[in-house]
């Protein structure tokens, strides 16, 4: 039942579109009823006409003939209108859901969304959102129409032929609910296993492609292929079993409905013979049952989708309801500019029970200080930055930024003053301009040009087909590693932040490309507090005055850069 509470909540998210959704649903019901009406009235009409012909009596055929025409128009127009209206409502709902979810997740990132870094969990979130976006179209509308149709069917039988309810009600329950539920239960295990096995096939396949050279070098390619095809064969066997059940369901439910027709005729026979029911109504009721069943046909699918949606909603809401790791102060304190930075006994743990990522960090950086933070991977360099950005709560100690403890200031305000140029430059699938001004939405044309020049991107921009308007990434222009870094440098420059963090800025670049980047980096770091995070200083030494070494989550030492380079760099 909790699942359905989640679905109610989903509905309430879309309450602004309630009227549209209701309108679409109304049109769907109208079209469905018109379809049933067409067959039902037609059945009654031809039976009544035949009887009148046989008896040689007069009959008012204008009303039923007009009704048939009306049903025909309503069915045609209603169906088109319904599909437009429901899709429009669904798209509006989609926009609301996305906007809501994104705004809920923003404050949770990254501390509470560690799981989303896993490609698989992220893919599941995507799939869940897809399901929820389709929910109105594949669950609510057809399910609702089926329920309304079933209700009318039962009401019609209760009115004309109550005794047939003994057949109709159990048949409806069996065909629309029991049989699909039974089959679902039989296939549940297989369905779950198929998902896992497919994930495994996916994993092994990625491995086979990524590790192709190694597999060939080891002569292990056949073994890997065997493993993949084995997982695939298992999944295929399960799918075949599921297909058998589905095929059974696809034929069993209509079979039950047809048998019910025979049952209705059996019930009606004595009633008609005794003259309690006009024979024309019997024909009408049989056609009503046949046409009404068509309405019920989507019910099993809707029931499955409802469960899927309920589970998806549960997961999405569970994620969206996570409390942010950090609370922002109601009245943020004002920070000094340019800010000094101070760490005092800072300890940080990513999760309960996890080892300390930072363990007693003490560090002072005056405004304008230029330091390198050097240490092996796992020494806590990145954690230091994450803590400073107010992304994670501290276990112990205090960080002050611009004279204010981080708890007293707004995280967004702190981050606005810290520009980061990272190891893995993130470019968005948008235009170059949009990518550049992400951190400074109101940047002026000449400011952008200046940043581009400082980052030595002019030649790159000139070569682009649409200049600043060129799309980057997938579907747009591919950007090399060096260019991507330059774009992030220009972006950081536009941010006009007093603190600049360079996180392994030349990692993964060959030495010439790295060399060429230094000029841009020097331009970016001029007049700012600079923290260069790296596991090897090498050429980055020219960007800093001091070197802070980190080991096992705390500061190991701090020396002038001349002393560090002189002491370590081999001839």
């Amino acid at each position: 039942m909790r699942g359905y509470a989640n679905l109610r909540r989903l509905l309430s998210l879309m309450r602004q579109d309630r009227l549209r959704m209701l309108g679409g649903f109304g049109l769907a019901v109208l079209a469905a009823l018109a379809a049933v009406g067409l067959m039902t009235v037609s059945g009654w009409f031809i039976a009544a006409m035949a009887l009148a012909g046989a008896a040689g009596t007069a009959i008012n055929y204008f009303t039923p003939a007009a009704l048939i025409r009306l049903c025909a128009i309503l069915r045609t127009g209603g169906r088109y209108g319904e599909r437009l209206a429901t899709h429009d409502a669904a798209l509006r709902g989609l926009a609301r859901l996305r906007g809501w979810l994104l705004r809920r997740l923003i404050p949770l990132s990254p501390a509470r969304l560690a799981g989303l870094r896993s490609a698989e969990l992220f893919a599941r979130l995507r799939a869940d959102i897809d399901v929820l976006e389709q929910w109105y179209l594949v669950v609510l509308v057809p399910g609702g129409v089926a329920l309304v149709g079933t209700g009318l069917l039962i009401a019609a039988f209760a009115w004309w032929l109550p005794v047939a309810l003994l057949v109709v009600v159990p048949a409806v329950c069996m065909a629309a609910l029991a049989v699909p539920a039974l089959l679902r239960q039989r296939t549940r295990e297989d369905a779950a296993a198929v998902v896992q096995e497919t994930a495994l096939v996916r994993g092994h396949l990625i491995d086979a492609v990524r590790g192709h050279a190694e597999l060939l070098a080891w002569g292990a390619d056949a073994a890997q292929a065997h493993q993949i095809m084995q997982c695939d064969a298992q999944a295929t066997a399960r799918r075949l079993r599921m297909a058998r059940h589905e095929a059974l369901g696809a034929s069993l439910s209509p079979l039950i409905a047809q048998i019910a027709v025979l049952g209705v005729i059996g019930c009606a026979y004595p009633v008609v013979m005794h003259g309690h029911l006009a024979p024309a109504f019997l024909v009408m009721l049989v056609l009503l049952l046949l046409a009404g069943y068509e309405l019920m046909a989507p019910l099993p699918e809707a029931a499955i989708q409802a469960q899927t949606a309920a589970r998806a909603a549960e997961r999405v809401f569970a994620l969206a309801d996570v409390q942010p790791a950090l609370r922002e102060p109601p009245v943020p304190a004002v920070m000094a500019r340019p800010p000094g930075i101070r760490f005092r006994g800072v300890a940080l743990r990513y999760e309960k029970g996890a080892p300390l990522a930072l363990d007693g960090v003490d560090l002072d950086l005056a405004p304008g200080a230029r330091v390198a933070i050097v240490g092996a991977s796992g020494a806590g360099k990145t954690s230091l930055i994450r803590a400073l950005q107010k992304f994670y709560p501290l276990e112990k100690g205090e960080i002050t930024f611009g004279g204010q403890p981080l708890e007293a200031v707004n995280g967004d305000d702190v981050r606005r003053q810290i520009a980061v140029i990272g190891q893995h430059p993130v470019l968005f699938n948008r235009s170059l301009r949009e990518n550049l001004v992400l951190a400074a939405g109101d940047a002026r044309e000449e400011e952008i040009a200046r940043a581009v020049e400082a980052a030595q991107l002019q030649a790159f921009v000139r070569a682009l087909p649409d200049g600043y308007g060129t799309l980057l990434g997938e579907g747009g222009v591919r950007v090399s590693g060096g260019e991507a870094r330059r774009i992030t440098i220009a972006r950081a420059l536009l941010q006009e932040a007093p603190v600049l963090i360079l996180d392994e800025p030349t990692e993964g670049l060959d030495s010439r490309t790295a060399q060429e980047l230094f000029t841009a980096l020097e331009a970016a770091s001029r007049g700012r507090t600079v923290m260069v995070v790296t596991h090897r200083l090498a050429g980055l030494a020219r960007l800093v005055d001091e070197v802070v070494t980190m080991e096992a989550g705390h500061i190991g030492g701090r020396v002038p850069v001349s002393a560090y380079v002189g002491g370590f760099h081999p001839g």
Partner: protein
Amino acid sequence: MEAVRWLREETLRIRRPLWRAGGFTALAAFATVGQAWFLARLLAAIVFPRAAAGPLWKSALFFLVAIGVRAYAVSLGRRTAEAASLGLRTDLRKRFLRHIQSLDPLTLRAQASGDLMVRLVDGIDALGPYYARYLPQASAAVIMPVIAVLAIFRADWVSGLILVCTAPFIPVFMVLVGHNAERAADQRFAQLRRLGAAFIEALGHLTTLRELGAAQRVADGLDAESETYRQLTMQVLRIAFLSSLVLEFFTTVSIALIAVFIGFRLLAHDLAFSAGLFVLLLAPELYAPLRALGTLRHARLEALAAAESLQHIEGAGRPPPAGKGAAPAAAPVLALQDVYFGYGGQPVLKGCSCTIRPGQVTALIGESGAGKSTILQLLLGFGQPASGVVTVDGKDLATLDPVGWRARVSLIPQAPTVFTGSLRHNLLLAMPSADPPTLDRALKESGLDTVVARLPAGLETPLGEHGVGLSGGQLQRLGLARAWLRTGACVWLFDEATAHLDRESAQCIGERIRAGASTRTVLLVAHRLEAAQKADWVIVLADGRVVEEGPPAMLASQAGAYSALLAAAAP
């Protein structure tokens, strides 16, 4: 258009089961006719008891038989089609996998590898509904109307004429409308997809957006984009739904026409009631498969989209013929003689000649793109030079049995691939026959033992997407451990194998390499010069040619390419 042809060609592979499924569809169609016929007779016998053409129970019994046969045929038809579709998918996967594994790694790398997995799993699965549902439904949409119209003609030629006159319009109009809809959809498709993907992109990069202080702004921007997305989609749908409107219109109009015509002819004694009712019962069945086909249209579109990307997989590259010669027993002399090599039309090696001698460490340095990694690949026998030869102890590498040769070589890549499975599986993949003492020694000498000690389940800890992630340094240790496991290797090829290690570990590993070099041929590709400085011999590569070689100390003292690189790297 090519995708259509590809789909059709693949369809031919399962034409037998598809024909069988078609046979079941025809059987179901006949049963449907029988079902309508006997139901009409049953009802007619009740409405006009005196005109009954036989006992009631007989019609009832035949009706039961007909619905039973129909259910059976539908179920079997679906099972047959589904099994054929699953079989085809497995075959395709196997075929593509075999093809991909036969490519040399350089060719495979040129084919955007991440995308390949999606194509092999999701792409092939996207074909499923097309073969299992769409094609059988398409044949039903032909078989059912033909059989139904013939039966209706026999019962009442006037109704038959109405249907024959209206039915042909349906496909014509659907094609006309559908064609326009497809074009309209195509035009907007790229734009739609970009808008749809923007949300997922934002979700995936929330932390970056927060760092840039752009999260809120992007969320607001997405709201506006969702609205654009909705408007564009609705424009497409308004046209796309026209095809269902056409179908709905003709279905409805012909049923209404038939009902009214039959009614009046019954009144005028022009037609037997059972024949009239039979036509009315069967008329909706005529359109049902066409309408069902409409709901499966997306299955065809998705299959076409998938075929678009699948059809080219087998086109790329052809496996080179393998040699048969025996691999050398002891450390060989490796040499490139005037080798030209390129991929994707881009020349990489342009007359490269060099010799790598056994018993010493040779370092290969040069700018990225100079061809260093390519040389490693060629030495493994991946890819063949356009001209010139790669030799092993003077013999052309192409004449050696590649499997035997690779068994003598250990490749230590820059970023070793982590395969889904336990750490043990990851190690033994490189050498399935390694015994426990060898494994222990390899762990110790690579420094992986300290990593294993900290893992929750030691060697059995699952790695990869579903398991523990390894840091860059740990990954390189894994690569080294794999190499040390291959005790039979007399050639070691290191591709920048210590870049992610801290200085001390790198030194440690360097010593191990030096020790191993006494009985092996060792080639080190170095992006960083530190590793080269300790080698016995340095080969400097520039623009696909060797520009300088010799002992590092000697080269450093000359004013050549090497000392220029040294000067550039110095802070």
